[in-house]
Structure formats: C-alpha cells, structure tokens
C-alpha cells in the first residue's frame, strides 16, 4: 500500500464510520460466521439423530445409522473407534465423542470458543446462553445415553439452539456482523439440508421395489420431520406422499425455511447488503461465485433434477457451498491486503 492510498483509505474509512456503521475486525466476522455455522450444525445433527432414533431404531433395517456416518463422510474415523454400526455407537460418536470433530460435543465446544472470542461484540445474554448451554449439554451427554434418553437429549439440544437463535435475533446489533452471522447460518443450513435429503436417496432406498411401501412412507415422514417440514408439507400436498414431491419440497420450495432455495436466497440477500449497505467490495466476488449455485437451483424442477441424478445434484450443491465459504474467507478474512 502506498502512502497516498493509505491516506485516502483513512479518509474513506472515516466516512464509512458515519454512513455505514462501525468497522468490523476480520477476525470477528470470521467468528460470527462460524458461531452461526456450528450452532446450526448442532441443531441439524440433533434433528437427524432424533428422527433416526425414533423411526429406525426399532425397525429391522439399521442402515439409517450407517447413512448418518456416510453423509458426513465420517466412515474412516468412525471405524477407527467402533467395530460396528449400531444405534449406540453412532449416538456416542455424534453426541459425546470429543475426538470426533463433527460430534455435537465438539461443535458446541467450537461454538462456545467462538462466542468467547466474540464477547466484546455480542450481548451478554448471547454469551451467557451459549456458555450455560454448553455446560449443561456436556453434563447431559456424559456417559452412555440410555435409549430412553435420546429423544430428550435431542429435544434439549434443539431447544438450546433455538434459544440461541432467538436471543441473537433479539439482541445482536444489526451491522455487518449480523450479515456475516446470517450468511454462516444459511450456508450451513443449506448444506445440512442437502445432506439430509442425500441420506434418503443415498442409502435408505436400496431397491426401487420398496418405493411406496409402508416402510418407505415412514422414512419419508421421518425425513420431513427432521427438517421440521412435515406439517407444512401436508398443507402443500394434502394427498399422497410421492418421494419426488418431498425432495422437491426440501430442495426447491421457496417458503420452506430449511430449503436449499431459501438458503441461497438468504445468502444472496446478506451478501448484497455487505456490498451495498456496508461498502464491502469483496462481496461482489462472492456474489459471482454464488451465481453458479443460484442458476443451478432456481427455476429448476425436481423432475429435471431426478432425471440427472439426485445424488449427483446434491454432491454438486455441497461443492458449491464449499466454494462459497472459501470465497467468503478469501474476500473478508484471509486477504492480508487492502480489500478495496
């Protein structure tokens, strides 16, 4: 940076201070993004575990447990520590095992350490809730969960995340930090929904003959419940349960709060805000990156997606989310140079 640039930047940031609200440390933006991601991840994982526990544990087919390990790409790590895929081993792996970085325990720890770093910025209530939530969750998940405890533990975890969401909505200052938090949350949510739908198509449906059977319908119900979409789905599609419409609902419905389309829409909104309201030109590069994903999911029909292969589509969506996350990091916290 040359002397003249630094001087003009100094003036520019002076203006920015009055028009665009306070500046934001890159490290704080990164922590806000990750705090939101980890909390969202915990909630989604709790949803998946609860639904699997309820609908798969007592069935003859235990592959539902394996599929959780598969969609998180945790097979190798899981098999290092556990001999067999059972309800107990998968629950332990995803609830309390701190060695497993995708466990709820590890995610909550990471969320809390991000929140600890953010304490100068976030409300006391926000920090206090994450702190208390972490401590209670750790107590609750210590030891071997009894089968009868699982649904209660998952309900507690979901509620803790929702409590966090509510406090954040009610107390987090609406400057660019809110946008980074929101982008993290919707990015994680979209990614998790794509994985959730993938469970079903990836493994739960071994042969075409099962389609429409009692077991099959049961599993589709479970999927919708995991995404908190069962009753909304019933309202939109009062008759029948065609697998394609469930997938279409979770991926493409604009009103479903956990759909991919909704996530993409929210990410776009907040990125645009970073660019236009807060003058962060780095947002434009990320928006370009988002264009590909947007084109790939907006104005698509589920039939078209199914024809091309759902699993392939979901894989592609996940890759796009990865690329967007990397572009955000490059634009806002990895760049050492003047971003303007």
């Amino acid at each position: 940076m040359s002397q003249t640039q630094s001087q003009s930047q100094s003036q520019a940031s002076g203006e920015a201070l009055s028009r665009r609200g306070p500046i934001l440390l890159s490290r704080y933006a990164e922590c806000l993004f990750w705090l939101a991601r980890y909390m969202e991840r915990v909630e989604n994982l709790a949803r998946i575990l609860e639904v699997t526990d309820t609908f798969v544990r007592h069935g003859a087919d235990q592959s539902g447990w394996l599929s959780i390990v598969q969609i998180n790409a945790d097979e190798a790590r899981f098999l290092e520590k556990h001999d067999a895929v059972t309800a107990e081993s998968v629950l332990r792996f995803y609830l309390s095992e701190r060695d497993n970085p995708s466990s709820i325990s590890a995610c909550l720890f990471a969320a809390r350490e991000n929140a600890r770093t953010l304490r100068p910025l976030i409300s006391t209530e926000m920090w206090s809730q994450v702190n208390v939530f972490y401590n209670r969750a750790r107590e609750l998940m210590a030891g071997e969960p009894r089968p009868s405890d699982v649904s209660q533990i998952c309900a507690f975890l979901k509620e803790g995340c929702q409590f966090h969401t509510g406090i954040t909505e009610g107390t987090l200052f609406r400057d660019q930090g809110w946008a980074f938090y929101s982008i993290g949350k919707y990015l994680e949510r979209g990614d998790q929904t794509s994985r959730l739908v993938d469970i079903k198509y990836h493994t739960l449906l071994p042969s075409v003959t099962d389609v429409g059977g009692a077991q099959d319908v049961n599993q589709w119900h479970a999927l919708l419940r995991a995404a908190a979409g069962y009753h909304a789905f019933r309202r939109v599609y009062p008759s029948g349960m065609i697998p394609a419409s469930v997938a279409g609902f979770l991926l493409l419905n604009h009103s479903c709060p956990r759909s991919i389309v909704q996530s993409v829409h929210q990410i776009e909104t907040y990125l645009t805000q970073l660019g236009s309201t807060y003058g962060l030109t780095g947002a434009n590069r990320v928006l370009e990156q988002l264009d590909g994903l947007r084109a790939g999911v907006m104005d698509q029909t589920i039939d078209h997606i199914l024809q091309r292969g759902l699993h392939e589509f979901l894989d592609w969506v996940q890759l796009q989310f990865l690329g967007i996350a990397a572009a955000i990091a490059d634009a806002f916290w990895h760049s050492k140079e003047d971003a303007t």
Partner: protein
Amino acid sequence: MTASSTVASGLSLGLLDAYDSDGFYCEMRDGAALDPRIAQVMARLRQVSPDDLRRRAEIAESELYNLGITFTVYSDRDAIDRILPFDLVPRILTPAEWDHIDRGVRQRVAALNAFLWDIYHDRAILRDKVVPESLVLGNPNYRPEMIGLDVPHRTYVHVCGIDLVRDETGGFLVLEDNARTPSGVSYVIENRHMMARMFPDLFDGIAVRPVGDYGMRLHTALTEIAPSGDAEPRVVLLSPGIYNSAYFEHIFLAREMGVPLVEGRDLTVEDGSVWMRTTAGLAPVHAIYRRLNDDFLDPDVFNPDSVLGVRGLIDVWRRGRVALANAVGTGVADDKAIYAYMPRIIRYYLAEDAILSNVQTNICAEAEGLAYTLDHLHELVVKPVGESGGYGIIIGPRASAEECREFRAKLIADPSNFISQPMVKLSVSPTLMGSRLAPRHVDLRPFAVTGKSTWVLPGGLTRVALREGSLVVNSSQGGGSKDTWVLE
C-alpha cells in the same frame, strides 16, 4: 422480601452473634463507629438469616459462572471456567477515608510519572543520589529504548493500581505499586452489579458513589494521548487472547470503552502507522491500551519469539504515530526495591510528604537492611523484589525453624533480590464462612487513570484472604473479592 426469609430465628445463632475481630481493625465494626451508615448496614446484616445469606451467595456464584465472569484454565481438550470467589458483605469506606486515599493515590501517580520521565531523561534523582543509580540502571525492567523519548503529557503510567492495607490502628499503608498492567478493575464494577442484584435491600437509602464510568474515563484518557490530527482517534485494546487468565477483564474493558479487542495478529505496521485488519481492509489505529507485557509487544525490539505482539509497533510509537498505554519501561518504577524509596521520591519531585505512608521497608541490598533482616527474620515478611502474585514470600512469624533456615541461606546468597517488612496486622472484614460471618483479612487496590490529569475510581478492588488467619489475598492463592463502597 418476606420477614420469615430474612429474620434470624430465635433458636439459631445470627450471622454476627459470635463475631470477634480479635484485635485487628475491623472494617465493619470499627467503621460503624465512624459513620452511622456503616452501623446501619451492620444492623441490617444482623437481620439477615444465615440461610438467606447462604442462598444469595450460591445464586451469586452460579451467576458468575453463567455470565462468564471467570478465568479459564485450558487443558488439552477442554476449557474449565473458574470464578474469583465473591463475598456478599461489602467493605465500606467513609467520605473522609476516601478523600485521603484519593489524594494519596494521585500524589503517588504524579511522583511515579515524574520519576519515570527523569530516569529516562535527566537522571537528576540519580545524580543527587536520592535513589542508587544501580537500582535503576541495573534493573531488568529499565528499558534503554525509552531514553530521551517524550510521551504525551509526560504520562507513562496511564492505569495504576496501588495496593493498600490497613494496620491495627486503622491507618492506610501502601504495600505495593502496580504500574505495568494492573488488573482487577472489571471485578470492581461487576461486584457492584452483583450486589445490586443480590442485596438491593442492603443499599436502601444509602448513597454509594458509582463506579460505572470507568470505561468512559479510560477511553477519554486514551484519546487524550492519541496523536493529534484525527478528530476521533480510534482506540483498541490489545489482548494476548482467550488463553490469558485476565481475558474476561479485557473483554469487559473493550465493551465498556466501546472499542475493538484486538490481538497482535489483527494489527500490522505499514507506512509508519499501525493498522487493523477489517472486513473492509486496513483501518488506522491511533491509541492502544495494551494488556501485554513489554517483552511481548514487538519482536523487533523485545522478545524476538513473541507471536502475541506487532512487528514494528515500538518504532511507530517512538515516532509519535500511535499512543501506547501504559508506556514501555514502567516496570522499573513499581519494583519492590524502588518502592522502599517512594517516600523520598515523592518529596524529591513534589516537595511534599507522602500522603499515604509506606510500610517500613528494609532493603537487603544495603548492609544495614540485610543485617536487620537476618536478626529479625522470625518477625518479618521477606519478599523477592522481582516476583508478583505473592510467590516466593516468607512470613517469618508463621514459618517453621526449618523454613527460616532454608530461607536464610537463600537470602545470604542473593541479598539484593529481597526486601523485608514488619508483619502488618491487616484489617479484617466480616466474610461469610459456612453459616456465620468470620473476620478475614483484606486489602484494597484503588485504580487511577491518567491522561492529561489523574482520576481515581471511587472504590477499588477489595481482596479478601478466605483462609482463616491468612494474609495472602492474591487470587492465585485462595483470595476472593468484595464490593467496595465509598459513601457519598
């Protein structure tokens, strides 16, 4: 509150029924004779049942955990939060007592700053042989980098914590100066908030001076030393990060000042200025309240292995392009060996007697002091000059013959590393122990903030030694804290 929950039943013993301060000055009982409001608080405490106080104390403790008013101990995979124990019985100072402390602290800060300017410029005090040259120039905390450097308003010690104790006559004595990065002020304010929530009935009708504007005062002082030219200088707090035991305080102060808490990796030096990395690129920084020791500030100048600091920072500071609080090199002034000379230093620069007296101090580096210390070891407290946190101290009257013998050898081997003082009979304050109030020894750390002028936070941190008979109030050694009231 219902009567049944607060009034002690006739059958059980009240909180203060068996209280005996045992010849020590009692902050509550002896204070009650000085001000009827202290007597009133004491009377109210008599009306509180032990169960009720116990219950409030438990709630307070869980709130400290939940709010994260904690220091964190990291193990390989976990982070365990610990709290500084908090006692619900306040320590109360009268307006006259506070006036004395306030004047004494401001005088002391003025002398410390005059001394620092002098030893880094004219060295008049060394030439005049008021303070031995070797004590200053040979001190590991004397920073040659500071020689000839002018700091705004000649203020080196922007934040100063001066540790006071009271002897059995009720007189205040200075135990120690903290002129580097004194901590504890966050507890002063959080303790007040906690008291207001847990014990509002104790305050009824009693006007206590507020402590809540500390952050604003500190921010003002930092803007006063920032390089002029910027209408609104940008202030940051530089912290070593979440692994530091005082991280809560760093958070607290950043929030109270409304400034970013930064780590070394958030800052960079370019084109002769300090910048912070923001989402919009680099933004200029004008004043830094650093909670990082001198050694770690700048790998170019001090510890080359430090990753906590900012390369090039000291050079920018020396050119007056950024302000640093506290200044580098203040550690020489709060050294325990220099402490012994403080009454003379005050007289030298200010032509006044010290308003707050020192504890009588023998300097073992001097033959006379060493001889006296060796002869009276069993009645003296001997402290190493370079340590803090109460480490390495021997309390003669409490030490075994064996411990005295071992210590004597250490002392003879390296006498200049030690000072000795008579054992001060520290004042006590009623403190909840189980289901009764018991006398526990306390000290007081008032905080002074200096930019253009000095302001002293009306209150300060009262630390209490929770172990029976213990004189060591440090949090690292079983100390707790109390709310400190200064009456209007």
